[in-house]
């Protein structure tokens, strides 16, 4: 039987520190994906992911269990990303950094694919923060509208509205570029 997130949290709180490693392995890909798409920066996303899990660990006792662990984790993750974006705005660190391109990326189709990804990345980055985070949570994290609403503490209808408006703006930006879609 697989332990639930909440059970692992309890085991960790009972002194079984190694149990927290299970949570990290279980969620690191999702959390890193969220951080990377929110920040658009490879190293920032890696550092922020570490910071997110450390924050979760240090605040485990504050997790009351009245919401799902994943919702609590995503809320912390979004806060950390938001803080990192604010710090970066002050430090004027370059926003654009593509992930390391594989060595065999010279193939035409590969280059073309990278270009499309880059266009999507830029279009997403240009969206207002509130819409971008809903699109990322819905499209890449696969969360339901109810979960998004719970994480952001907004009505479900607002989550849907933000998604529609975000997609609408994304369509305008990407359709303006030939072959972007």
């Amino acid at each position, binding site marked *: 039987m697989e332990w639930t997130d909440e059970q692992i949290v309890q085991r*960790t*709180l009972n*002194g079984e*520190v190694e149990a*927290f490693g299970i949570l*990290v392995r279980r969620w*690191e*890909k999702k959390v*890193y*994906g969220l951080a*990377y*798409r929110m920040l658009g920066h*490879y190293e920032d996303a*890696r550092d922020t*992911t*570490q910071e997110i*899990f*450390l924050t979760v*660990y*240090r605040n*485990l*006792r504050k997790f009351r269990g009245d919401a799902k662990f994943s919702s609590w984790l995503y809320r912390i993750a979004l806060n950390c990303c938001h803080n990192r974006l604010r710090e970066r705005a002050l430090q004027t660190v370059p926003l654009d950094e593509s*992930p390391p391109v*594989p060595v065999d990326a010279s193939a035409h189709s590969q280059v073309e*694919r990278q270009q*499309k*990804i880059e266009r*999507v*990345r830029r279009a*997403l980055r240009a969206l207002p923060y509130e819409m971008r985070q809903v*699109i990322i949570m*819905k*499209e*890449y994290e696969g969360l*339901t*509208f109810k979960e998004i609403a719970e994480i952001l503490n907004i009505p479900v*209808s607002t989550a*849907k*509205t933000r*998604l*529609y*408006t975000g*997609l*609408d703006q*994304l*369509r305008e930006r*990407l*359709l303006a570029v030939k072959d*972007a*879609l």
Partner: protein
Amino acid sequence: MSDHHEQLMEYLYQELSPEEARRFEDHLGTCEMCQKDLADFRRLRQALAAWDVEEVPHISLTIDGSPSRGWLALWRAFPIWMRLVTAAAAAMLVLALFNVQMSYHPQKGFQFSASLWPRAELPGAPQPKPRPVGLTEEQVTALIRTAITQTQRETNEQMAAQLQALAAKLRSENERLLIQMANTLRQEQEERLAELEDQLGQPSTVSTLAELFWEEPNSGY
């Protein structure tokens, strides 16, 4: 934002119940705008899906012990002098909380006693001299009145000094102007006198004072 937009979002991400989905499809058959939105957003989702995270970097966390170990790590990060100061402050706080009293007796040595409540002074201990409780209302009024009078006197003195300085300055300026005028007048008189002396030294063409001022009626005409 219409209800159809919200339903469109749920339909796009398959969050409608079968019955709701069927009803929305009925609507789709008659609404070109929703049809276009749906087609565009599906293409958009394909484009978004292309941006996948290929490789997750290794996430390493340095965690030792239970969550409370974080405080221990912070304590260990302090330099030794800061630990000593913090410990002393904490000890004094605890002693103060429990009203700990320490006394020394030559035969008995040091004696400590603690209580949850503040206690009366020890017998024989030097009593602090009672401090003056405060001033009466009349005294306070008198003090305020004296302070106001003092301030008014100082202000008056300052203004008088300023007026005197201004008067002296004006007087000095007037004297300077008067001297300048007198000098100019004297100089003009001296020049005029010199001219007259020159004229007196030359042979006069007039014989009487009247000739000096009145010309002959027929001279030159």
